[in-house]
């Protein structure tokens, strides 16, 4: 992507930004996140369909923040993560330059939140069909089958917290699992600790998750944990008509309400 | 049943609780099993893992002197889950104790020397052990000077013992509080420990200095000691890294090639200078 490299070089040259967060060549044909600070290095930027990591996670990392004002190479889910972070007052207007790339490979430089919103409204949210299929398959199971399925999957978890660390929405300085007075959820990776942890994770990013799938990609044990967050996102979309990461001014789905929200489950 | 589970603590009964300062308490602990108590021995500088069952373990030094057999004491400030749980206990309650772990103050090598103790805040407890050890074997040492500072008068721990030391003819005690921390009737010094140390300027001749305190105090005290002529081998301190196992396995207290739990907690300034700044 010649255009991307040029854009990045210009931004750095003109001192618009101090760092460009993008993808570069990694090992074994994998791309990796790179942090370009010298315009001369802009040529190291790459972009292809393998560039899936949600780079928005780096925007709030202390070590990266220290580098200065960033520009970030962003696919649609990354742009949505940024909007959601802005909605949660984690990213200020004008603090980041977005080098957005549409699914068909078109590069757009975005500098304002308004333009960011325009970008996502013309590039609507997309959920991988295979994820929706899996979701449906699990929903069709009996309660018992579902329980066994998840117990099987979640009991393997060893709590490396790659799901949490890779998620742009998990930016809390202190995660609930680290709050130990009282200890809400056990940090041990036994069955109870794992089941509770994954329920908690899903609930805490419900209505905020943009379904980038990064948590499942990051999971070294291939546990399909993104299905949990996808499930809550779908519920929120269907019941409350809200989708995270579409508007920086939109209220968080679980801290707002409508008087006529459905309540057939309440007796 | 394994006879030697490394992580199985002794059961200890709380014999006495002393309120030292706001949020700071001292427990006197006796072995629930007398035989275990008789076999137990430790030396000045060592630490242990104290546990409230159901809450977890916590690392403190043994604050009492090995010269006073039959019990151990620990002093802690309420800060986290375990220390808060400890603070809620009463005399007669049972806690766990694993230890003693770690190295020691080489008090045997200090025979015939002057001792200069410098402590700040909640760091007097690790030193109290060696102070009493020295005072109980007073004839082995020449001048004993204790410089102790805390944020406020209320924050000074071991107030009774400070009075006791002040009355001892062969101990020179200087207490100080940070500016603003004094009370109207405060008779001690006012100022930070390094500044007061510079002011009293104790001689470095034939003297070892033992320094315990928060990292910031240590950082500013070393240069003053150096100025006073102390050699790096004559300055001792303790490191207080976070620990879990206490026996060199869990990895937490690893600083450079050292494990604070096994190679420390007592280090000379010579060693400290070699360490990476990860303490």
């Amino acid at each position, binding site marked *: 992507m010649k255009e991307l490299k040029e854009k990045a070089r210009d931004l750095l040259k003109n001192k618009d930004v101090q760092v460009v967060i993008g993808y570069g060549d990694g090992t074994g044909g994998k791309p990796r996140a790179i942090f370009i600070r010298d315009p001369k290095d802009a040529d190291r930027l790459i972009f292809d369909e393998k560039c899936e990591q949600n780079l928005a996670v780096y925007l709030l990392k202390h070590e990266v923040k220290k580098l200065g004002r960033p520009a970030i190479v962003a696919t649609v889910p990354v742009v949505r993560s940024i909007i959601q972070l802005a909605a949660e007052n984690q990213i200020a207007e004008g603090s980041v330059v977005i080098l957005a790339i549409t699914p068909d490979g078109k590069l757009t430089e975005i500098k304002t939140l308004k333009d960011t919103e325009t970008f996502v409204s013309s590039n609507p949210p997309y959920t991988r069909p295979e994820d929706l299929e899996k979701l449906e398959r699990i929903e069709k199971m009996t309660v018992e089958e579902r329980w066994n399925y998840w117990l099987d999957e979640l009991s393997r978890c060893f709590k490396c917290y790659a799901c949490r660390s890779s998620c742009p929405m998990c930016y809390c300085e202190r995660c609930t699992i680290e709050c130990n007075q009282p200890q809400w959820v056990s940090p041990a990776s036994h069955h109870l600790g794992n089941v509770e942890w994954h329920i908690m994770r899903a609930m805490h990013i419900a209505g905020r998750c943009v379904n980038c799938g990064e948590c499942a990609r990051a999971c070294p044990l291939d546990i399909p944990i993104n299905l949990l967050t996808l499930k809550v996102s779908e519920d929120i979309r269907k019941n409350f008509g809200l989708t995270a990461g579409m508007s920086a001014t939109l209220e968080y789905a679980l801290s707002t309400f409508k008087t006529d929200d459905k309540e057939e489950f*309440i007796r | 049943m394994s006879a030697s589970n490394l992580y199985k603590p002794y059961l200890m009964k709380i014999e006495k609780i002393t309120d030292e300062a706001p949020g700071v308490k001292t427990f006197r602990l006796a072995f629930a099993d007398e035989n275990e108590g008789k076999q137990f021995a430790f030396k000045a500088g060592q630490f242990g893992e104290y546990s409230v069952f159901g809450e977890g373990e916590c690392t403190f030094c043994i604050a009492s002197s090995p010269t006073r057999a039959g019990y151990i004491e620990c002093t802690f400030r309420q800060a986290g889950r375990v220390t808060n749980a400890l603070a809620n206990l009463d005399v007669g309650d049972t806690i766990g104790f694993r230890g003693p772990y770690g190295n020691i103050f080489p008090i045997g090598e200090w025979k015939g020397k002057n001792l200069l103790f410098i402590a700040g805040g909640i760091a007097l407890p690790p030193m109290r052990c060696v102070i009493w050890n020295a005072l109980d074997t007073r004839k082995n040492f020449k001048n004993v000077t204790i410089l102790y500072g805390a944020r406020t008068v209320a924050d000074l721990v071991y107030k009774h013992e400070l009075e006791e030391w002040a009355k001892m003819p062969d101990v020179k005690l200087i207490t100080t509080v940070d500016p603003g921390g004094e009370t109207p009737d405060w008779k001690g010094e006012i100022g930070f420990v390094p500044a007061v140390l510079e002011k009293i300027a104790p001689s470095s001749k034939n003297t070892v200095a033992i320094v315990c305190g928060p990292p910031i105090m240590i950082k500013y005290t070393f240069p003053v000691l150096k100025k006073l002529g102390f050699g790096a081998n004559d300055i001792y301190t303790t490191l207080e890294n976070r620990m879990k196992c206490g026996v060199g396995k869990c990895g937490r207290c690893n600083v450079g090639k050292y494990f604070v739990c096994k190679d420390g907690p007592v280090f000379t300034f010579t060693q400290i200078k070699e360490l990476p700044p990860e303490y």
Partner: protein
Amino acid sequence: MSTFEPKIVAFVCNWCTYAGADLTGTSRIKYAPNVRIIRFPCTGRIDFMLLLKAFAEGADGIIVSGCHPNDCHYTSGNFHARRRWMVFRSLLDFMGIDTRRLQFSWVSAAEGARWAELVNTTVNNIRELGPFEEYRQLRGAGIE
């Protein structure tokens, strides 16, 4: 399983359901003794983590109840709670937990009889379901 007596934990708001349950008592309406009531200032305060704790500690069923919509002492606590309940309930369902074990309701301060009926129905439902062994078995599992 005629001998099985379910343990039910009820998380209720102070202003409506707790008062309602009080009325059940003062009206001398008899109802199943299987319920342990925990009083909260408002249903908006009832975090899902509390419900998880109840299950982990051995509850066979949970009742969560507060003021009817528009009657919240704090105006909107119950509306907020309703959304979270919906999402939480659906997530538990997705993970294979029988949602009959988690009963949400509105019971006002005047509805003493309704409270009795709610508890009785829930107890009967849970009695049919049996003890919540699946969740209880999580405790201790996976520890070598």
